[in-house]
Structure formats: structure tokens, C-alpha cells
């Protein structure tokens, strides 16, 4: 996910922590957070995935004025069948996700996210058909230009559309 400006906001961290069922007080209580080693509200380890919210072109978010492939009047909002898989990484289905943490990510940080392609490789699927893996490497830097998190997503595509089931 590329983003020119990804503001890491306290309210967003609280909502994200709730959604992953993590009750750790450091994610929502700034008074408590001051007493901890990081000394401030920090983000959970997978929080940078939410940079999708700040990627103007993220394809898994409905866009104002555009058709959406989820159900509406009919089971899909578009007439032309469109591939809808993907949870990150290089598209298709999300096969792997890796993070390297360079420093704690704190509420108030403003990140940039720069994405570049990584390695790609192929494997024979267990049920036949080729599996095509591709890496996407995203570097998240803070307002001082310091590297905070390096994220490597691995996406996998099959020869068939990812949403056709197996």
C-alpha cells in the first residue's frame, strides 16, 4: 500500500486494537501509556496494514461514484465479472506477511509508505495449475524520515481467478 501521508491517529489505533480483540491499555489510554516502556500510545504490530485507508488507489475500498463488486440489488453490484481476491501483498490471495520493526510506531507519527516489487517465483499447486507468488516490499518512514517498519507481503495468484473458489 503506497501512501504519501499516513497519519497514525490515537482513535484509529483504538478502533484497530478493538477489531483484533486486543484489550492492551497501551492502545487507548495515554495516561497509562506514559507509565510503560514506550512511554506513549503505540500501534499494534500489524497496524501499518491500515495504511490502505490512506492509499488513494486501494482497490478493496468502495470509491464514491464507482460501481462496487459486492452485493447490492443483485449479488454483485457490477454486471461485468471482475476479479475480487486479495488481502494485500502483491494481489490475488494473501499468502504471507512479514514485518521488521525498527522503532515503536507512536500515535501522532505521520508516515509515508513507499512500495516496490520484491521477488517473484512459481510453484506447482497441489491440485494442479501454477501458483504465482510475488512479493511487495513497503517501507514506512516517519516525519523525521526514519524507517519505522518494513513490511513484506506475499500474494499468490492461481491460473484461475482467485474468487472462483477451489
Amino acid at each position, binding site marked *: 500500500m503506497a501512501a504519501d501521508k499516513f497519519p497514525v491517529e490515537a482513535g*484509529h489505533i483504538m*478502533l*484497530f486494537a*478493538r*477489531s*483484533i*480483540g*486486543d484489550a*492492551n491499555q*497501551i492502545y487507548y489510554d495515554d495516561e497509562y501509556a506514559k507509565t*510503560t*516502556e*514506550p512511554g506513549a500510545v*503505540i500501534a*499494534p*504490530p*500489524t497496524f501499518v*496494514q*491500515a*495504511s*490502505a*485507508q490512506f492509499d488513494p488507489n*486501494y482497490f*478493496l*475500498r*468502495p470509491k464514491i461514484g464507482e460501481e*462496487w*463488486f*459486492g*452485493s447490492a440489488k443483485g*449479488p*454483485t453490484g457490477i454486471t461485468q*465479472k471482475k476479479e*475480487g*481476491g*486479495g*488481502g*494485500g501483498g502483491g494481489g490475488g*490471495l*494473501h*499468502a*504471507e*506477511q*512479514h*514485518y*521488521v*520493526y525498527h522503532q*515503536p510506531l507512536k500515535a501522532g507519527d505521520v508516515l509515508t509508505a513507499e512500495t516496490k516489487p520484491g521477488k517473484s517465483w512459481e510453484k506447482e499447486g497441489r491440485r494442479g495449475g501454477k501458483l504465482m507468488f510475488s512479493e511487495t516490499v513497503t517501507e514506512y518512514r516517519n516525519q523525521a524520515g526514519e524507517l519505522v517498519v518494513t513490511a*513484506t507481503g506475499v500474494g499468490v495468484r492461481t491460473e484461475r481467478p482467485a*474468487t*472462483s*473458489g477451489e
Partner: protein
Amino acid sequence: MPLKASELKVGDTYEKEVCRNLSRTQIVQYAGASGDYNPLHSDEIFTTQVAGYPSVFAHGMLTMGMTGGMLTDYVGDGRLRSYGVRFTSQVWPGDTLVAKATITGITEKDGEKIAEIDVETTNEEGTVVVKGQATAALDD
């Protein structure tokens, strides 16, 4: 609280139930917070009638996020140095997941004592849903 290298040994484990009877609503909560609104995770009509799955299913990143909560409970806040997983099986509404960490090594890097950790999350049937590794900085 951070772990202490002097009190830790290879083979030590920690586990946590990270969700019980996972609800579709929690999956929707994750969609809203993360920004991944893929209908496969929230739209039962699309997912069953168009995509051909038996029901909606959780984002892999939701499972990785819940598993990360087990890790930070274990190693302490701000102590993770790396964390990576492979998504090995889908997670469905109704699943109960247990995330487990196993210490596989204690090393040193850039002047820090580091725990090497195997990570595995399983559902109620014993199927592994994510599998990976993490490293965390230790106190002496």
C-alpha cells in the same frame, strides 16, 4: 513486562485464546479499521452466490493481528523486532483460535539479547491457520 534472557530457555511456551466463536461483526470491525473492504469478508450474498465459498471468512490479517496480541502480551510492548506468518488455512465465523509462541533460540544482535520465537495459531479442530516466526528484544 519484557522477558528476561536469564529466566528464559529454549522450549518455553506461551499461549492465549485470541478469539472464541468469531463473529461476522468482528470481521466487519476489522474491515472498517484496516480499510480492507473486500466483500469476501463481510458480504455473505456476494461470497456464497458469486465467489462460491460456503460463507464469508476472516481476513488473514485479522488472524495475524489477533496472533500479534498474544505475542505482545508475552514479550512486552515495543519489544518485537520482527514478526512474519504464512496463512495456511482459512478462518471462518464461529472459529475459536489459540495462538502459541515457542522459544526456539536466544541470541544477540546489535547489542540486544533476542528471543527467537515460533508462532502458530490453531482452530478448535487443531488445524493450523497461521504459522510463522518472530523475534523480540529481551532484558538481561
